[in-house]
Structures are given as C-alpha cells and as structure tokens.
C-alpha cells in the first residue's frame, strides 16, 4: 500500500468535517467537526513527515494539537457563556452579524 492513501483519508475526513461545520446547528457539534478537520490535517502532516523522512511534519502536527487545545478551551467557554445568556447552543440563534 502506498502511504498516499493516508492523505486520501485525511482529505476525506477533512471534507466530512467541513460539511459537518456547515450542516450542524449545535455549536458544540460544530466545534467537534472543526476538531475533526484539524485532526485530518494532523494526519496529513504526519504522513508528509513520513514521506519526506523528517520530523518537521510531526512537530507541526504537535503545534496544531496545542493550538487546537487552546482553541477548544476558549471556544467552549464562549459557547457556555452564550448558552447562559440565551439558553441555546444553536449557532443560528446568534445571527446578529448582519447590517
């Protein structure tokens, strides 16, 4: 098997995640989908590091994880506070971003 298949898989997961972000209304699930996308990227990175035989890809993936963690922390906090204020976790209920 050619490790490129890992890349195909990553692409597939990424796409699914993206679709999820677009389709789901529950902020938490949307967040999960974002995580999914990030993971897909990580998989790609790792695979690349394997293809090229150096560890930089893994380092990047590592950083991605850290950033993802930070992002999740903040993001979830935001969700919680939004939920407190308007008793809903649906992204469609916050549509003030218009003229």
């Amino acid at each position: 098997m050619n490790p490129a298949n890992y890349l195909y898989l990553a692409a597939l997961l990424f796409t699914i995640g993206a679709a999820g972000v677009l389709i789901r209304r529950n902020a938490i699930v949307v967040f999960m989908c974002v995580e999914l996308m990030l993971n897909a990227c990580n998989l790609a990175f790792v695979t690349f590091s394997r293809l090229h035989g150096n560890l930089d890809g893994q380092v990047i993936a590592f950083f991605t994880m850290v950033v993802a963690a930070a992002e999740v922390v903040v993001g979830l906090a935001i969700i919680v506070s939004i939920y407190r204020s308007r008793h809903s976790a649906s992204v469609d209920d916050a549509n003030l971003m218009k003229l």
Partner: protein
Amino acid sequence: MSAPLMLAAASSQTSTGEAVQFWILAVVAVAGALGTVLMKKSVHSALSLAGTMIVLAVFYLAEGAYFLGIVQIVVYTGAIMMLFLFVVMLVGITAADSLKETLKGQRWLAALCGIGFGILLIAGIANASLDTFIGTGSANKADGGNVQGLAHLVFTKYVWAFEITGALLITAAIGAMVLTHRERTEERRTQRELSEARIREGKQVTPLPAPGTYARHNAADVPALLPDGSISELSVSSTLRERGQVRDVSRDAMQRLAALDRASGEWLGRRMPALERNGANGNGNGTSNGNGVNGGNGNGVNGANGNGAAQVNGNNGNGRNGSGSAEEGAQ
C-alpha cells in the same frame, strides 16, 4: 540528505500488515467522522469523534510518530473530548438539535462545496507524484528515538514557535476563565430573608412537597402524587422539569390502588359500585393528567437515558410517548 541516498532509502510500499490495518481502521475512522456529523445527539457525536481520534492515534503510531500517537490519545481523546463531554452535559445532554435545516439551500450548498472541495483535494493529491516515500525510521534513529528527535526540533528549530504556543495556552486559559467567570453583584440572601420574601409574596409558604410521596418510589425524578392521583410538578426539581425528565408514575399507582380495592372487595364478597365508579373516575383523571405530562416530557423520556425510561412504562402510555416524541420531531 543527498539524492542518491534518498533514492536508496526510498521505498514505495508499506508492509501488508499496515495495509490491512489501514483498510480496516480507515473504514472505522470514516464511519466515526460521519457519525460525528450525522448523529442526532451531541453526546453520540462526541463519542464517535473520540472513536475517530483513537483510530487516528493508531495511524500515527503506525506511521512512526509514536509521540504524537500517545499525545493524540492522551490530549485529544483524554482531555479535549472529555472537555467536550463536560460542556455537553453542562449545556444539557438532551438539548439535541434536530437535523432539520432552517437556512434555505444551506444543505445543498454545503454538500456541493464539500464534495467539490473533497474532489479537488483528492485530485490534488492524485496528481502529486507520491509513488515513493522515505519513512520516519531514519529520522527517528538520528536522535535516538522519535521523542528525542521531536524535542531536538522543538527546542532548536521551532523554539520560538514553541514559546509562542506557550503564551497562547496561557492566554487561552485566562480567556476561558474570564469568559466563564460571573461576578456576583449583590449580597447573597440569607435563609431568613428568603422565607420573609416567600411570606411577603404569599404563595407557597410551606416547604415544597418532597418527591416520591405516595408513589412507591422516592427517586428525585418521581413527582409526588396529589390526593386525586395527579402529580405535583412542584415536588420535582425545576432543572429536571426543564429537561422534561420527570418520571410520571401516577397511572400505575392508580392501577395498583384499583387492583387492591378490587381484590379486597372480592375477598369481602361485596361489591362497591360507587368506589368502582370512583376509581374509574380517578383513572380517567389520572390518564388525562398523565397524558398531559407524558406528552410534555415524551421527548425527555426518549431523550435522556431513554431505554431506562422505556422499561419503566413500556405500556400504551409509552406508545403515546412515542407518538408524542414524533410530534416533537415534527414540530
């Protein structure tokens, strides 16, 4: 490293073992991803996502990224997903959003873009020449191990980024605190003040009824029964009421009562129509009330640890519940 060496090191096929593993786990991963997107309840989404992540961890390990593999399991599956679950619980397990689309054309556009994007990515990968690969073995060996190798890179080449991420993490932590912290503005009211307030308002001066009274259950989610056999909403905590997790046992309580009367009546050998009528009455009342309640919390019954609830009242009331939940979904 130099080209000829690279060519020497380069190989184009992985071990069959890995291939097999890949083909099996890839399916699982995709299934998990789809689950994340399509599952109705956020808890299920979270769980399937966790599954995908574990699979990915395995892939990392297989690809020689041992450190990342472990981190993936520990940080992601262990920490981040748990965080997710916490929030899900916090926000309400059962506040699942129906998959019904509200934005016009959103779903179609999403599908279109997603598929198009996927095709593009795959096409991109396809026409990249990736027939050979080097593998991480040599890189891992170079510093005597994957972890050492990573550490070497992180603390030399990427030290600056590393520091920045550190700062980022701190910022994130503080940010989370700031966002979730709520400042208490007024003095907390003492019990005395509360009771005085209650009396001033003049409603519900006495303490609320405890749950489970006359109900042969004393679980927190079983409301007390009023003399006419209907339930007293007040006896259940408002949160449960909010979530519609009130478990109504008024009907079988009444039925048991009726059965008891009948049995005792037969044993005494006298018939008491009035009481029967009475019981019928009560029954009628009970059902009507129960209907109302069930209708109200049908979704809850199906929504929370549903099978449990199903066992409790798996009778025609449950059928109603089903229909009730269907209506909920339809609404």
